[in-house]
């Protein structure tokens, strides 16, 4: 049951991404912070139509904006240089 709910939520999220023109595929696997903006590898529309879980692969979306926000895929490195 919980699993289904999660899938449903995923679909909603995907559907939302259609609205905003998001072309990102599976945001959970994204490695760049702002998705692959406008690269056309999105799947959202097809996923939603098929009712399948939000997985990448099929679509050819062409959204102009960056992909799904909120992915915590970056950190920071503070560099210290010392001569001894």
């Amino acid at each position: 049951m919980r699993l289904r709910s999660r899938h449903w939520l995923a679909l909603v999220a995907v559907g939302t991404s259609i609205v905003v023109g998001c072309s990102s595929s599976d945001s959970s696997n994204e490695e760049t912070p702002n998705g692959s903006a406008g690269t056309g590898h999105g799947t959202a529309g097809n996923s939603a139509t098929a009712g399948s879980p939000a997985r990448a692969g099929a679509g050819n979306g062409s959204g102009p904006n960056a992909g799904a926000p909120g992915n915590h895929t970056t950190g920071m490195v503070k560099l210290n240089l010392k001569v001894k």
Partner: protein
Amino acid sequence: MNRIANRRSLPIARALLGALSLASLATLASVAGAMPGEVSFTPTGLKLSVMRIVLSATDANGNPTSQAVLYTCPEATEEECLVDVTDQSALDAIAEHVGSAVVSVGTYDTVSLELCASGKNGMTPAPGYVRGIFTVESEHETYITAEGDDAPLGIRALEPGELSEPDFAKIGNWSCSTKSVHLPSPIEVSADVATDLTVVVDPKLIAFSTPNVSGGMGGCRGLMNGSARGVCVSYPSLVPLVGEETPDLERFLIAHHKDDPDAILDSKANAYVVVVRSAGSGDPLTAFVRPYYSETSAQTSSNVPYDLVYGGPGYFGETLVSSVHVTADGGVDFTTGGSLDGNSAIFSDFTLNDHKGVVDTRTQGTYQYHAIPISPAGNGGEGGSSGSGAGGTSGTGEGGTSGMGEGGSGPLPV
């Protein structure tokens, strides 16, 4: 053990091959051997072009699987990107420029410093400048680095009573390269968290001068036929560590005897070993080595020919970080060189004090050694004017050139 060494040597060998000038420098510098008039010294200035500093994740073969650029010089040319790596304020300026670099989350294990813009290989000259002063006891001369008609090879002897300061002189035969160093433990970059990475530069004893420097040697400025005194410079050691605290560096000179520890002559020391430990005299983290030259040093087996009795193993190449382990008595065991470096030094228990022990090699058997602590102050080649050797516990008194004969019971003032 051998399998590990072999596996880990691959990325190191690759890094060295990629950094052609570094490889040639290390080899050729070793061939120079030890002889009268030859001294190592610590530069008071060393300007290198720092074009990029890159953090990488690598696979088992040392190939990068992902990279994050921490620093890119804001200028276009190598000459404009020169940094005096002996000047803490210059290093601070880079760190300030970097601030907190945004990188993808993940685990990284290698830090690289690129001397040149991308696309330039080891055949492309790179700018580099060294500044320093050293004394050659056998000649009763003190030399300074300089440029001008009176210093065609980047050095000149001071006149009696002259107090001139050294100037920066161009390093000879210095080419584009990338210095890549593995972290003793990888750095984990987490989401939205700032992680400190400290890179320590050790320029001690990285320059040397001989009466027969060939301008054909990597990092060396001299006549091509090797008939005059010149100066050679090695790449400074870099030690990247996770955290913001500056580690402690425990430095030693190493003297050897083939089989009798009581017959070791400290004046024949020909190697430099540094053990890096966490701040506050904490646990050992890693170690590195390089050759050391004085007028009395024995020729190490990284030279041809070498001193079969006092020469000891070869001290060149990188330490295999994966081989560094803390021993039960607080020392470290570590392996240097690649799998093909049959004579490179392998320590099984290098303790952080004045001590004697046995150093192994892959193919040339064992040697007895004496690890002689070096005090942090002073400059190579400038101490130990006459080898007073007044019974110092550091085992000095064997002639004392290059800062080795000041008597005393403390560490050697190199």
